[in-house]
Protein backbone atom coordinates (compact mmCIF):
# COMPACT_ATOMS: atom_id res chain seq x y z
CA UNK A 1 0.00 0.00 0.00
CA UNK A 2 1.25 3.46 -0.94
CA UNK A 3 0.85 5.99 1.84
CA UNK A 4 0.04 9.61 1.12
CA UNK A 5 2.72 12.17 1.91
CA UNK A 6 1.44 15.63 2.69
CA UNK A 7 3.28 18.87 3.35
CA UNK A 8 1.53 22.00 4.62
CA UNK A 9 3.35 25.32 4.40
CA UNK A 10 2.63 28.30 6.64
CA UNK A 11 3.42 31.94 5.99
CA UNK A 12 1.23 33.56 8.62
CA UNK A 13 1.61 33.36 12.39
CA UNK A 14 -2.17 33.08 12.84
CA UNK A 15 -2.25 29.93 10.71
CA UNK A 16 0.78 28.14 12.06
CA UNK A 17 -0.64 26.45 15.14
CA UNK A 18 -3.81 25.35 13.37
CA UNK A 19 -1.78 24.20 10.39
CA UNK A 20 0.31 21.96 12.64
CA UNK A 21 -2.89 20.60 14.16
CA UNK A 22 -4.08 19.89 10.63
CA UNK A 23 -0.86 17.98 9.89
CA UNK A 24 -1.35 15.99 13.09
CA UNK A 25 -4.90 15.16 11.98
CA UNK A 26 -3.55 13.66 8.76
CA UNK A 27 -0.83 11.70 10.58
CA UNK A 28 -3.55 10.13 12.72
CA UNK A 29 -5.18 9.05 9.44
CA UNK A 30 -2.02 7.10 8.53
CA UNK A 31 -0.39 9.64 6.27
CA UNK A 32 3.12 11.00 6.39
CA UNK A 33 2.41 14.58 7.38
CA UNK A 34 4.82 17.50 7.50
CA UNK A 35 4.59 21.20 8.15
CA UNK A 36 6.96 24.02 7.28
CA UNK A 37 6.98 27.51 8.78
CA UNK A 38 8.41 29.61 5.99
CA UNK A 39 10.55 32.77 6.14
CA UNK A 40 8.17 35.01 8.04
CA UNK A 41 6.36 34.82 10.41
CA UNK A 42 8.22 34.92 13.66
CA UNK A 43 6.49 32.30 15.74
CA UNK A 44 5.31 32.50 19.31
CA UNK A 45 6.64 29.97 21.79
CA UNK A 46 4.57 26.76 21.76
CA UNK A 47 2.48 26.17 24.83
CA UNK A 48 2.49 22.72 26.44
CA UNK A 49 -0.35 21.40 24.28
CA UNK A 50 1.25 22.62 21.07
CA UNK A 51 4.63 21.16 22.03
CA UNK A 52 2.84 17.89 22.74
CA UNK A 53 1.20 18.01 19.29
CA UNK A 54 4.64 18.34 17.71
CA UNK A 55 5.90 15.35 19.68
CA UNK A 56 2.89 13.29 18.65
CA UNK A 57 3.46 14.22 15.02
CA UNK A 58 7.10 13.13 15.29
CA UNK A 59 6.05 9.88 16.95
CA UNK A 60 4.01 9.20 13.81
CA UNK A 61 7.02 9.86 11.57
CA UNK A 62 5.89 13.37 10.63
CA UNK A 63 7.76 16.57 11.43
CA UNK A 64 7.62 20.36 11.39
CA UNK A 65 10.38 22.40 9.78
CA UNK A 66 11.17 26.10 9.75
CA UNK A 67 13.28 28.16 7.39
CA UNK A 68 14.55 30.63 10.01
CA UNK A 69 17.04 29.89 12.76
CA UNK A 70 14.95 31.90 15.26
CA UNK A 71 11.85 29.78 14.79
CA UNK A 72 13.86 26.54 14.90
CA UNK A 73 15.50 27.49 18.19
CA UNK A 74 12.32 28.85 19.75
CA UNK A 75 10.17 25.78 19.16
CA UNK A 76 12.65 22.98 18.56
CA UNK A 77 11.85 22.75 14.84
CA UNK A 78 14.05 21.17 12.20
CA UNK A 79 15.87 23.70 9.98
CA UNK A 80 15.20 23.63 6.25
CA UNK A 81 16.17 25.99 3.45
CA UNK A 82 13.68 26.95 0.72
CA UNK A 83 15.72 24.87 -1.73
CA UNK A 84 15.59 21.83 0.59
CA UNK A 85 11.87 22.38 1.06
CA UNK A 86 11.39 22.40 -2.71
CA UNK A 87 13.25 19.09 -3.04
CA UNK A 88 11.15 17.63 -0.22
CA UNK A 89 7.95 18.78 -1.93
CA UNK A 90 8.86 16.76 -5.03
CA UNK A 91 8.32 13.63 -2.98
CA UNK A 92 4.87 14.67 -1.69
CA UNK A 93 1.53 13.39 -2.96
CA UNK A 94 -0.18 16.56 -1.66
CA UNK A 95 1.30 20.06 -1.30
CA UNK A 96 -0.74 22.55 0.69
CA UNK A 97 0.12 26.27 0.83
CA UNK A 98 -1.92 26.86 3.98
CA UNK A 99 -4.08 29.89 4.79
CA UNK A 100 -3.02 33.35 3.75
CA UNK A 101 0.24 35.26 3.52
CA UNK A 102 0.38 37.94 6.20
CA UNK A 103 0.04 41.33 4.53
Amino acid at each position, binding site marked *: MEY*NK*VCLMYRNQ*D*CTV*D*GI*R*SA*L*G*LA*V*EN*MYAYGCVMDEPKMEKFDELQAESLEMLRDMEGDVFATTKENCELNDLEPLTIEELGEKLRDM*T*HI*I*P*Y*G*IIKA
Partner: protein
Amino acid sequence: MSKSLGIFVTNPDQFKHVMGITKAAKAKGSSVKVFFSWDATHNAKKEAGFPELCKIADDVSICVDSYKNMGYDIDDVPEGLEANKMATQAQHGIIIEDYDCYLSL
Protein backbone atom coordinates in the same frame (compact mmCIF):
# COMPACT_ATOMS: atom_id res chain seq x y z
CA MET B 1 -17.67 8.91 -15.28
CA SER B 2 -16.32 12.22 -14.05
CA LYS B 3 -13.60 12.32 -11.42
CA SER B 4 -14.45 13.28 -7.87
CA LEU B 5 -13.04 16.46 -6.33
CA GLY B 6 -12.20 17.34 -2.74
CA ILE B 7 -11.60 20.96 -1.74
CA PHE B 8 -9.84 21.94 1.50
CA VAL B 9 -10.44 25.60 2.36
CA THR B 10 -8.17 27.50 4.78
CA ASN B 11 -8.27 30.99 3.29
CA PRO B 12 -11.43 32.99 4.12
CA ASP B 13 -11.15 35.09 0.97
CA GLN B 14 -11.60 32.27 -1.52
CA PHE B 15 -15.32 31.58 -1.21
CA LYS B 16 -16.24 32.83 -4.68
CA HIS B 17 -13.70 30.39 -6.11
CA VAL B 18 -15.09 27.56 -3.95
CA MET B 19 -18.53 28.25 -5.43
CA GLY B 20 -17.28 28.68 -8.99
CA ILE B 21 -15.21 25.51 -8.97
CA THR B 22 -17.93 23.48 -7.24
CA LYS B 23 -20.55 24.58 -9.80
CA ALA B 24 -18.22 23.82 -12.72
CA ALA B 25 -17.33 20.38 -11.33
CA LYS B 26 -20.97 19.50 -10.64
CA ALA B 27 -21.86 20.52 -14.21
CA LYS B 28 -19.39 17.84 -15.35
CA GLY B 29 -21.06 15.20 -13.18
CA SER B 30 -18.38 15.22 -10.51
CA SER B 31 -18.90 14.40 -6.86
CA VAL B 32 -17.59 17.31 -4.75
CA LYS B 33 -16.71 17.43 -1.07
CA VAL B 34 -15.70 20.70 0.62
CA PHE B 35 -14.13 21.04 4.08
CA PHE B 36 -13.55 24.43 5.74
CA SER B 37 -10.91 24.86 8.44
CA TRP B 38 -9.55 27.65 10.66
CA ASP B 39 -10.22 31.22 9.36
CA ALA B 40 -12.25 29.83 6.49
CA THR B 41 -14.97 28.66 8.90
CA HIS B 42 -16.06 32.33 8.89
CA ASN B 43 -17.42 31.56 5.41
CA ALA B 44 -20.12 29.39 6.98
CA LYS B 45 -21.56 32.39 8.85
CA LYS B 46 -20.57 35.37 6.73
CA GLU B 47 -20.99 34.24 3.13
CA ALA B 48 -24.56 34.59 1.84
CA GLY B 49 -23.89 31.81 -0.66
CA PHE B 50 -22.92 29.22 1.95
CA PRO B 51 -26.38 27.57 2.20
CA GLU B 52 -26.42 27.32 -1.60
CA LEU B 53 -22.99 25.66 -1.56
CA CYS B 54 -24.36 23.09 0.89
CA LYS B 55 -27.11 22.28 -1.64
CA ILE B 56 -24.87 22.13 -4.70
CA ALA B 57 -21.94 20.15 -3.27
CA ASP B 58 -22.34 16.50 -2.33
CA ASP B 59 -20.75 17.00 1.08
CA VAL B 60 -19.88 20.18 2.98
CA SER B 61 -18.38 20.16 6.45
CA ILE B 62 -16.49 22.53 8.73
CA CYS B 63 -13.93 22.01 11.48
CA VAL B 64 -15.88 22.48 14.71
CA ASP B 65 -12.75 23.25 16.75
CA SER B 66 -11.80 26.01 14.30
CA TYR B 67 -15.36 27.36 14.35
CA LYS B 68 -15.20 27.56 18.14
CA ASN B 69 -11.76 29.22 17.97
CA MET B 70 -13.17 31.86 15.62
CA GLY B 71 -15.59 32.83 18.40
CA TYR B 72 -18.76 30.99 17.38
CA ASP B 73 -21.00 28.88 19.57
CA ILE B 74 -20.82 25.28 18.40
CA ASP B 75 -24.58 24.94 18.96
CA ASP B 76 -25.10 27.70 16.40
CA VAL B 77 -25.10 25.47 13.32
CA PRO B 78 -24.64 27.57 10.15
CA GLU B 79 -27.64 27.74 7.81
CA GLY B 80 -27.59 24.96 5.24
CA LEU B 81 -25.21 22.75 7.20
CA GLU B 82 -26.27 19.55 8.92
CA ALA B 83 -25.28 19.40 12.59
CA ASN B 84 -23.25 16.23 12.02
CA LYS B 85 -21.13 18.14 9.48
CA MET B 86 -19.65 20.20 12.30
CA ALA B 87 -16.75 17.81 12.23
CA THR B 88 -13.05 17.13 12.80
CA GLN B 89 -9.88 17.20 10.70
CA ALA B 90 -10.70 13.60 9.75
CA GLN B 91 -12.81 15.18 6.97
CA HIS B 92 -9.58 16.44 5.40
CA GLY B 93 -8.22 12.91 5.56
CA ILE B 94 -11.30 11.64 3.72
CA ILE B 95 -10.76 14.21 0.95
CA ILE B 96 -7.17 13.08 0.48
CA GLU B 97 -7.84 9.34 0.70
CA ASP B 98 -11.15 8.96 -1.08
CA TYR B 99 -11.34 11.65 -3.76
CA ASP B 100 -9.68 11.48 -7.18
CA CYS B 101 -8.56 15.10 -7.25
CA TYR B 102 -7.47 17.47 -4.51
CA LEU B 103 -7.52 21.24 -4.32
CA SER B 104 -6.65 23.54 -1.43
CA LEU B 105 -7.96 27.10 -1.42
